[in-house]
């Protein structure tokens, strides 16, 4: 099997319009949460979220850098974020000038959990108010989930596999895992892989609110709302953004002298087969997903130094995940650090697994693990596990594990290590 490495990174997050700004803010224990600005959410179940900030903000996102004005007008924000993150990643990898032959073997696997919800909502209102002849002719292809991969392939001339995963909040991790397999199986040499999401819109907040998934109790202090494993946690905080990595076949990357961030060595997938929104009560799906990824990696449990948890700050999910990690690692759990960066940037849904994989890669690069914010009073089942409360921690990081779990009972885990 061919080896697969990461040679480029791109990110749009609530804490930055690029990778390094987001990472610097994560390590500085900043929170991207605030009162929702996109619409008046006063009367909604929750009125706060982690929004991507406007261009004039200290750590805002400027869509004009990489996305044409016309495209910006025609597509939903998740596609704009995805195109930009993909552009960052391919620039970072130094692959803007691939030959046609190389581009036949370069593809995209950038998905989303939900897709263009804000545009579906707003055009439905146009339809109701003004009739079918006022619906945008760009409505369909401006909302479709595979249109990040589509737009990116057109913009950069990538003619290899064109794929888009849709597995709710596991999308980003599945995208990277599937794309890595395409390279390992010799379907491609280079893949842009990741996920994006933007559902901070009335129907999105109302829908997740009605599913009783959102945090609702921190209206006055939204930066305290995302608090994985803390006793006062009451649901997730909606985030938005995108993460994309460049995956590349190892020998090719080495031959061209590419900067190699990490190697993708393990990928695990499983289904809970239990409930549409609730995790399996024994965390069995999470356990088997991690177990498969670790088995594929060939590493020993003791080799994993950092786990970026799914850790959404929901009452049920956090402890079940921790329980599964504890069962899998046994005594080795004492040697690892595990944190949830959702405490800082909220839950990016289909973008989460990709953005969090990038944080894992940066932890490998910088030998520091990001913190779990707001972990004031860990639940009783957290004893004996380093959950990196409040502040980042410098430590040895040899290999990392990233978890993502989604509605429908879909689980994905990735193991990466330095090369």
């Amino acid at each position, binding site marked *: 099997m061919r080896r697969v490495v990461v040679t480029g990174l791109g990110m749009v997050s609530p804490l930055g319009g690029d990778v390094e700004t987001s990472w610097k803010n994560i390590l500085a224990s900043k929170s991207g949460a605030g009162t929702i600005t996109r619409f008046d959410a006063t009367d909604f179940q929750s009125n706060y979220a982690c929004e991507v900030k406007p261009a004039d903000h200290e750590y805002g996102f400027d869509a004009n850098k990489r996305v*044409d*004005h*016309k495209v910006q007008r025609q597509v939903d924000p998740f596609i704009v974020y995805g195109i930009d993150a993909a552009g960052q990643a391919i620039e970072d990898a130094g692959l803007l000038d691939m030959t046609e032959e190389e581009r036949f073997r370069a593809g995209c696997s950038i998905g989303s959990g939900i897709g263009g919800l804000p545009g579906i909502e707003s055009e439905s209102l146009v339809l109701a108010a003004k009739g079918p002849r*006022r619906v*945008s*002719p*760009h409505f369909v292809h401006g909302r479709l989930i595979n249109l990040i991969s589509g737009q990116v392939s057109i913009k950069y001339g990538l003619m290899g596999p064109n794929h888009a995963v849709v597995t709710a909040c596991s999308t980003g991790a599945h995208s990277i895992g599937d794309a890595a397999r395409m390279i390992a199986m010799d379907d491609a040499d280079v893949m842009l892989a990741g996920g994006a999401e933007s559902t901070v819109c009335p129907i999105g907040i109302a829908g997740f609110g009605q599913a009783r998934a959102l945090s609702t109790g921190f209206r006055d202090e939204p930066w305290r709302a995302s608090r994985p494993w803390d006793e006062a946690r009451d649901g997730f905080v909606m985030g938005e953004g995108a993460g994309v990595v460049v995956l590349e076949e190892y020998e090719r990357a080495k031959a061209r002298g590419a900067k190699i961030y990490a190697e993708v060595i393990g990928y695990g997938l499983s289904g809970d087969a239990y409930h549409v929104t609730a995790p399996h009560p024994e965390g069995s799906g999470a356990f088997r997903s991690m177990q498969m990824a670790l088995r594929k990696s060939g590493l020993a449990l003791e080799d994993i130094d950092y786990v970026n948890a799914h850790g959404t700050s929901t009452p049920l999910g956090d402890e079940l995940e921790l329980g599964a990690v504890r069962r899998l690692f046994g005594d080795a759990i004492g040697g690892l650090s595990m944190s949830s960066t959702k405490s800082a940037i909220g839950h990016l849904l289909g973008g989460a697994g990709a953005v969090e994989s990038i944080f894992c890669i940066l932890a490998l690069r910088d030998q520091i693990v990001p913190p779990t914010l707001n972990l004031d009073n860990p639940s009783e089942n957290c004893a004996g596990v380093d959950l990196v409360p409040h502040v980042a921690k410098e430590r040895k990081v040899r290999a990392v594990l990233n978890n993502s779990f989604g509605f429908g009972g879909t689980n994905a885990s990735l193991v990466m290590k330095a090369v």
Partner: protein
Amino acid sequence: MSETADRVKKIVVEHLGVEAEKVTEDASFIDDLGADSLDIVELVMAFEEEFGVEIPDDAAEKIATVKDAIDYIDSKQ
């Protein structure tokens, strides 16, 4: 420049993201301004909204330049 021309050009600039100087009356939406057929559908919708006119599909198909649009709108007002 007529008032219609002014308003048409403003819509074209906004929708196609092109520089205002490029939007001359002779400019072809597809050949000069980078539009595709769906962009024209969108432009026609915007003209209908802006001017309160109806532009049926067979008429819309004949609108190729900025001047075509201005003339059609003026003829209906």
